[in-house]
């Protein structure tokens, strides 16, 4: 049995890990929850975001500036993907959407590999986030502490834009009945475009913020994509608050299991997902029949 300080440390770590998972999953859930598209290029876009930060950092030498420019790049990439490919798939079955986004993912990852090679790239921790901070009985990396605050702000911002403005309403109405929304004189095309691009920026931003922590390689997104799916299944497919709560729960499970035995942490996560699928198939915040 681990000591109380060890458990408390892991519980805190679960919060930090969970907030990162929530941010990583948010891009996936935005696109799924509003446009109804299951985006299998999610992992690849995460990697593209991290590489964008890496490249911009070389030019700007400032982490914040690199992230700002990187977000601009992801926005343009999101626009292009939506206009050139995704918009033709809104009305198609999920199988088609999965195939096309999966294909986009492969192309993006191999483009990254062709340009940068297969080795990990170095994205240093920003100067304001270096070192570790003593928090009572535990020492925690300063950058991760800052990330919790940054991510909380971002998630609240995303939620307000998508669900407390008319844009979210228009998108959801447009998915249900595009003809009627069109008759009301609303430009659906532009709204869909914008929402998809916001989703792409969200996942890219997660990649940028995570780049100083993980190994930046072309395949880095694969694991995050798998975890994101677990998180949104836990929280409820397409539910934004669900992704946040699901992320926090996933983080706590991984962390608290590690206090006992780290080799079981991932197994416990999937076990919980399986249990939830049996007891509440729509997830914690999902509504039946949606998506």
């Amino acid at each position, binding site marked *: 049995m681990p000591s109380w*300080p*060890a458990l408390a*440390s*892991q519980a805190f*770590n*679960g919060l*930090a*890990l969970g907030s*990162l998972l929530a941010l990583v999953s948010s891009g996936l859930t935005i696109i799924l929850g509003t446009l109804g598209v299951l985006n299998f290029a999610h992992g690849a876009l995460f990697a593209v975001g991290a590489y964008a930060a890496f490249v911009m950092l070389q030019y700007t030498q400032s982490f914040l500036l690199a992230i700002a420019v990187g977000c601009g790049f992801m926005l343009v990439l999101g626009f292009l993907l939506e206009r050139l490919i995704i918009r033709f798939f809104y009305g198609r079955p999920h199988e088609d959407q999965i195939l096309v986004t999966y294909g986009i993912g492969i192309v993006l990852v*191999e483009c990254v*590999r062709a340009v940068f*090679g*297969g*080795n*990990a*790239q*170095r994205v240093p*921790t920003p100067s304001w986030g270096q*070192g*570790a901070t003593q928090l009572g009985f*535990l*020492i*925690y*990396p300063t*950058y*991760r502490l800052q990330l919790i605050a940054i991510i909380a702000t971002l998630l609240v911002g995303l939620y307000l834009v998508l669900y407390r403005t008319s844009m979210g309403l228009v998108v959801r109405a447009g998915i249900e009945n595009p003809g009627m929304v069109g008759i009301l004189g609303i430009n659906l095309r532009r709204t869909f475009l914008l929402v998809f691009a916001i989703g792409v920026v969200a996942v890219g931003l997660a990649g940028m913020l995570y780049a100083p*922590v*993980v*190994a930046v*390689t*072309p*395949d*880095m997104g*694969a*694991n*995050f994509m798998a*975890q994101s799916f677990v998180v949104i299944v836990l929280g409820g497919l397409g539910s934004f608050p669900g992704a946040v709560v699901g992320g926090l729960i996933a983080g706590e499970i*991984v*962390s608290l*299991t*590690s*206090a006992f*035995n*780290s*080799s079981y*942490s*991932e197994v416990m996560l999937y076990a919980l997902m399986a249990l939830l699928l049996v007891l509440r198939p729509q997830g914690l915040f999902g509504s039946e029949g949606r998506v």
Partner: protein
Amino acid sequence: MKLDRRQILLGGAGAAAGLVLPGGAAWAQTPASIGTFPDGVTADSVFVGLTIPLTGVFSGDGGDLKLGYELAISEINAGGDAAKKWGLQGKGVLGRQIRYKVSDTEGKPNLDVQSATQFIQRDKAIMLAGSVSSASAIALEELGSREKVLYMVGIAGSNDITGKNCQRYGFRSQQNAYMAAKALAPVVAKALGKNMKTAFLVPDYTYGHTVYDSFAKFSKEQGWQQVAKEVVPLGTTDYSSALLNIANSGADVFVNIAFGADAVASTKQAEQFGVLKKMKLVVPNLSSFQDKELGAEIMQGVYGSCDFWWTLSDRYPLAKGFVDAFVAKNKYHPRWGAHIGYMQTYLWAMTVERVKSFNPVEVIKAMEASKEQPYETTIGKVYFRAEDHQMVRPIPILRGKAPAEMKGPEDYYEIVDVAEGESVMNPPDLFGCKLGPYT
């Protein structure tokens, strides 16, 4: 040149045809036709099939490995000074140019087997090489033995390759986990002190477990005591929960067994958790590009071992030739993946020229007999052990240099010791090796 009995027996008309005349009792069982031999040997060329992950998680090491093979093949085909220094004669191997193809296998054993099967059936490959994972190497070894085509193992460190999964048609030049640990433990104990407390980070697959078993055993013999062991899934991206336990374990030494991108992520995060300030880092098997990927700031003071480091060129003339040619061609210093590709290709070519035949049975028997006639290589004199096909070879032990100590951008390590091969070998039957039949 000194001729031995075997070369005299195998000379003459048989060699001209690429065939071997039976001579003496030991060679009576050699079939005239086996696997892709002699169909795969034309008057002017032979084909070599390379199965290498160029995409996927092993693509970094795979790219390096590929450049090693290509350098060796181009040198051998040109028949210039480089090939002569290895003792090869004329252009190509036995006068045949080496043709080759590289198949991207993504590091997936099923794709390795699929590509290698194509190389055998379509191209009549006379030799197979490649792999950047122990799982791939095991699959290819089995295929080679079933199809009777020689397979020279690429990057693969698990004890099983020349242990319970060993095969008659597979030969490995890289040291296994046991050898690496036995060579490394006394050196680090001498440098860091006896009676240290250790915390292990172990990736949960065959490689991770065999490296852990071996290093835990030999570090214990040095008086080291384990206080934490964190087993994590392969491909973990966030190690924070395992690192919290390690940070609070009170250990003096952090033994990180994670490999490749996992090694990069876990070490980077260990640094952020302040683990590297409190503990010395030991990496039983250093990943190929770990130095560059993490940078000297983090890698300074780390102790580890690997197949080859480029400053060995100060000790061995053939290593100098290799490193210089590689840098000239590829504009960076070769890592040990490239070295394995390069050396394994030359070892095969040298053996073929020794027996004056591409017949795999002849080549295998000569490799098995290499203890009497060791190969002069980029790491000095080496030979393959007849019982399990593991190479007996020196093992470099490295220490990461601080940024200020580096004399060039890629001068990441100091070679603190080169362990002598014979002294670190496991007993040949320890891991249950049973080589199959020749035919």
